[in-house]
């Protein structure tokens, strides 16, 4: 049995944690402002599909990445309008977006590429395997700085904790929440784009396979704080990396470990982490609550 712990495993962990870091930090902006963003999964799918399609046509991954960000912002704006303008239930709105984004790429892919789920292969030289990883680790201190060291961050946190206090101080609760949800769309869009034009070389149907939800779990596990959330993402990334390495490893009895069993490891870990730690983590107090001024 060859050792599964190696330099390759570290790099693999970093790459697998990257989309989670982008999406969870996106979620952080939204949730710190008081808007639950369960739509991260759908936003990532939008980013992944758009980035792969545009990169394929434009032949340039940077244009593809920008398109992925734009798609993330566009999808999150639906969530923002539903939750902030129309006071919709934030979980229902997010879930609707997730369901929509399972179907929409397949539909668009069908008309663009005559396939029902995937985009064509992108040549290797048009992929960006490492830059988003590097940027993800700059995103963490940047997010921390914005949240804790700028007026914008102060207002954002106030709006998520006690919107009436922010309102009384002359801060526009709606404006803060709109910006926060759109930022979350942009960041989760990058996370999605990295899946299709960084980690792999095409978009496949439902390729996020729950990473949006895992990002949300990391956000909760990380107590809605940048560094802790990054550590949670690294933990989930590491588990995924290990589970990939374990594929094809034989048990002492000579049999392969069943693939299905290995693949459930990250999800089982998510459940354990959430069940075990959710009580200790205090959510922003106004999360999930639409803010309505008194008449």
């Amino acid at each position, binding site marked *: 049995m060859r050792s599964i712990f190696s330099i390759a495993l570290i790099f693999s962990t970093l790459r697998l944690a990257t989309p989670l870091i982008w999406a969870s930090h996106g979620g952080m902006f939204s949730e710190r402002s008081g808007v639950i963003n369960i739509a991260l999964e759908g936003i990532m799918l939008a980013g992944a599909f758009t980035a792969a399609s545009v990169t394929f046509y434009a032949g340039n991954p940077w244009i593809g990445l920008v398109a992925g960000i734009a798609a993330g912002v566009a999808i999150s704006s639906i969530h923002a309008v539903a939750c902030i303008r129309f006071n919709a239930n934030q979980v229902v709105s997010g879930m609707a977006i997730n369901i929509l984004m399972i179907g929409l790429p397949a539909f668009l892919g069908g008309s663009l590429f005559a396939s029902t789920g995937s985009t064509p292969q992108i040549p290797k030289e048009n992929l960006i395997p490492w830059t988003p990883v590097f940027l993800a680790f700059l995103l963490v201190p940047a997010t921390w700085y914005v949240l804790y060291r700028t007026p*914008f961050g*102060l207002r954002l946190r*106030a709006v998520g904790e006690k919107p009436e*206090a922010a309102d*009384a*101080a*002359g801060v526009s609760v709606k404006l803060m929440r709109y910006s926060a949800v759109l930022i979350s769309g942009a960041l989760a869009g990058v996370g999605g784009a990295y899946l299709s034009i960084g980690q792999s070389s095409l978009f496949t149907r439902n390729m996020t396979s729950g990473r949006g939800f895992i990002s949300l779990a990391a956000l909760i596990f990380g107590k809605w704080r940048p560094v802790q959330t990054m550590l949670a993402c690294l933990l989930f990334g590491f588990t995924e990396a290990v589970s990939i390495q374990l594929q094809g490893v034989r048990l002492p009895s000579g049999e392969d470990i069943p693939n299905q069993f290995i693949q459930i490891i990250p999800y089982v870990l998510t459940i354990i982490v959430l069940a075990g730690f959710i009580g200790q983590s205090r959510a922003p*107090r106004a999360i999930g609550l639409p803010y309505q001024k*008194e008449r």
Partner: protein
Amino acid sequence: MLELRDITKRFGEVLANDRINIKITEGTIHAIVGENGAGKSTIMRIAYGFYTADSGEILVDGQVRRIDTPHDAIAQGIGMVHQHFMLVENMTVAENIVLGSEPGSAAALDLKSASQKIRALSEEFKLAINPSAVIETLSVGQQQRVELLKALYRDARLLILDEPTAVLTPQEVEEFFTILRGMREQGKTVVIITHKLDEVLAISDEVTVMRDGRVVGRVKTKDTNAAELARMMVGRDVLLRVEKPDADAGATVLSLQDLRVMGMDGTPRVDGLTFDVRAGEVVGIAGVEGNGQTELIESLAGLTEPELVSGRVEFEGRDITTATAKERKQMGVAHIPEDRHRRGLLLDFDLAENSILGVQDREPIVSFAGVMLDNGAIERRARQIIKDFDVRPANPALPARSLSGGNQQKLIIGREFDLHPKLLLVAQPTRGVDIGAIEFIHRKLIALRDAGCAILLVSAELEEVTALADRLLVIHEGKIVGEVDPKVATTEEIGLMMTGGHR
């Protein structure tokens, strides 16, 4: 300094402010008094830009100004301290104060210079607030001073205070008034919204009285007295003192022996109480809120998990320490809860349905062996309660939500009195209730006492417990720190005991 001219504001069908004219003189403390629903908070929220008036104008220093948002008000030098503090609990004092008008650039928040300014203001007005303290670690009185600082930091010249003393102990009220007088000396103008007449007389220079959305009186404080103000507020003569004969106490009804109630966090909330309540007497519990009164009353009503309760509770000699709420009710224990919305009413249910809570399984409310509700009997009972307790509007089909606080409370009191209880547990009977209804409720409680009921009363209003109680126990951190005779004890004496000091 501030003048409101012909301000009218409607909320749907309700005319909250009807052509209001108020003039606030610079450098004075101006009280706005009125019963709940008189429109006093509404008019001040209009001045602060929380609401916009349907018609009328606002003048600041003689100039007509548009104040559509709190931002506009702040720009005109108007600040407001709300009844419920507008503070983010997990942030620091400095962060809360600068929120919305942050110093420094958009890229970097400058909390250092803000903290310096806050320290200077805190010293100037003797507020003793540390800018780096986190709000949730501060006492209520300190949080209120942070609210004052918030307005002062924004260079407010006029401070509007909405029911500022509701959450303070008598000592804190005195300190707070000293601060306000200091502000007046520094040239600030203060508007204080309240319904407590003794405070109006103690602190204000001028008074505007409101009733039913109108201004009904404008007087200089030195030219008026409590009786006159009460008459203007209510529109008729009001008895401010409770008149009651001495208690004729009979047999012991409730007896506590070393009662302890634990909180969910494992700390004791009620810490070894031993006392009796006898038939025909009112035992009052005075104390700053949150010192175990809620837990005491709820445990006696049978609403606490039995494993959190230890010690012994006897009712007419029987051990009821672990009896359920229903069993207690059947024995003759009635309960008027402190939070009528949480424990007292189903707000979306109508008055008739609310009037049977607690007797929903008894004859004649149910018939056919307990499976059918008898709507005729329910309505007759509801009408009787509504009539006896003057609940308005007198329509059993209205949802409880649509009634004013005082009328909701009268419905609950009527319902509990109708059980003909031997013991009444009553918490904050007149919270959020108008003066007129307070007088009514007090008279009803004394009448119940005189009919031989034992009453255990908890109230945050010191005046109320001293007026109603025949014996007064003072509670601090779950312990009884002393018993006083309410007829001779002074407010200062009781207030000191409430904060844990000895007499």
